């Protein structure tokens, strides 16, 4: 059982053809990924309300994808409306906040307000982190006692900061996705962080899951830690059905 907590649905502006839902499912099948939690690319890159609704329609076609409601901290009224509407459905289980596309650093006032709103809603949030910005996310967790946050990319080249951040707050989770794979990075994360704070994320369909899965394999993660990383922590964090108890989603399209 594998749950990818950092996925996307929709087109990207690079030389790639991954816009269709079938691309998500094909990539998941390529690596044995059972479920993915995805944000709409339109929602994070351009228009959050429109992209969130486009994703909602796509999620009706399959049981293998859950949704993140994308939040643009510059439009909190829109975000609050989307969150209250879409989190009420069983297909949306969290929020996505991309600091770069929204021009809203984690330490900015508008992002603090967005994170406070998500904490009040008890909604887990995947936040793009890079370099030292993960320390700002740790500070947000300290400031907002109900906030549960995933540091997307585990801060990429700032992974040592991500370890420091996760060690400072047990409501801060790390996932490994990154298109680069420095040797020893994920092994360093696993050795430095409580395995109850590890999640498996790929950034597909922007990045092929080989990048995250190769890093996991290279780190030699096994046993209970592998199970927690692969699905157990995600199931707990997002309140998903216990799919390992024979409750797996069917692999085709909904009709």
């Amino acid at each position, binding site marked *: *059982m*594998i749950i990818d907590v950092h996925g996307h649905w929709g087109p990207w502006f*690079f*030389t*790639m*053809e*991954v816009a269709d839902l079938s*691309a998500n499912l*094909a*990539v998941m099948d*390529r*690596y*044995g990924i059972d479920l993915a939690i995805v944000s709409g690319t339109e929602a994070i890159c351009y228009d959050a309300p429109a992209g969130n609704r486009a994703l909602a329609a796509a999620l009706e076609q399959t049981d293998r994808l859950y949704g993140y409601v994308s939040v643009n901290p510059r439009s909190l009224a829109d975000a609050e409306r989307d969150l209250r509407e879409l989190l009420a459905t069983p297909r949306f289980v969290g929020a996505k906040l991309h600091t770069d596309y929204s021009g809203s650093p984690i330490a900015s006032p508008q992002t603090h307000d967005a994170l406070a709103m998500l904490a009040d809603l008890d909604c887990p949030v995947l936040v793009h982190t890079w370099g030292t910005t993960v320390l700002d996310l740790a500070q947000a967790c300290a400031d907002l006692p109900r906030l549960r946050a995933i540091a997307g990319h585990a801060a990429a080249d700032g992974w040592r900061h991500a370890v420091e951040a996760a060690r400072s707050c047990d409501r801060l989770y790390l996932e490994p996705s990154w*298109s*680069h*794979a*420095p*040797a*020893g*990075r*994920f*092994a360093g994360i696993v050795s430095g962080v409580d395995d109850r704070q590890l999640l498996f994320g790929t950034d*597909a*369909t*922007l*990045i*092929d899951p*080989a*990048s995250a*899965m*190769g*890093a*996991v*394999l*290279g780190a030699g*993660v*096994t046993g209970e830690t*592998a*199970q927690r*990383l*692969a*699905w157990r922590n995600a199931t707990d964090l997002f309140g998903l059905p216990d799919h390992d108890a024979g409750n797996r989603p069917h692999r085709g399209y909904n009709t």
Partner: protein
Amino acid sequence: MPFEAPDLSITLDIDVLIGAYPDRDGAPVSMQAAMHAAGVATAAVASLRAALFDVQSGNDEALAAAGPDVLPIGAVDLRDPIGAERELDRLVSHGVRAVRLFPEEQHIEPDFPSVRAIAKRATALGLPVLTGGDVRRFWRPFSGLDAVVVFLDTHFYHLGDFLIVARDEPGFHTSTRLLNSPDALETVAAQAGAGRLVFGSRIPYAEPMVPRLRLARSGLVPQDIAAVAGGNARRLLGLAT
């Protein structure tokens, strides 16, 4: 276990280093250990000593490492193009089959005269060039020379630019190391041919399981996977395939 390693042998990895970066942490495992763990049978190995400090003693280090699993690759210092030309001649006299350029490590821009000069000299000597750097800029000094080049740092973000220049340059190839979008390998194969893809990992400084897993799970046909896993590199380096 939820995560399963691929069953794929890499017969020749084009991007392997010996030595160390003084401004980085050391590699977590040795080159040999990383090769073994990743199923890499033979590595095209260049010296960081040559790239960062002293070309001749560094290349001698690579030459001394030659063996059944190590194919030495020469390096030159683009900060000294006159010395680099001399070193190319010396490398050829030692039977070296390719030269590697380190423009980022040496702070070299693609329009510096040294790059074009070494591109011409290497091509005239029949040496394939393995080069780092942003392919969107480093294609230019190799253009129009009938050069054989492997771009080692092609990121899938820049794939379209590689494909555009590859149309006019049959000798342009790309490492697979950073082509890790869901369809990058398949797109290169469809648009330029799988013969343009060369497996590279950057052992021991990058995780080789990533490009290995990507290639193993790709949509390429088995004979193309085998070619990318080493056959193409062997052809470029003039080895028996």
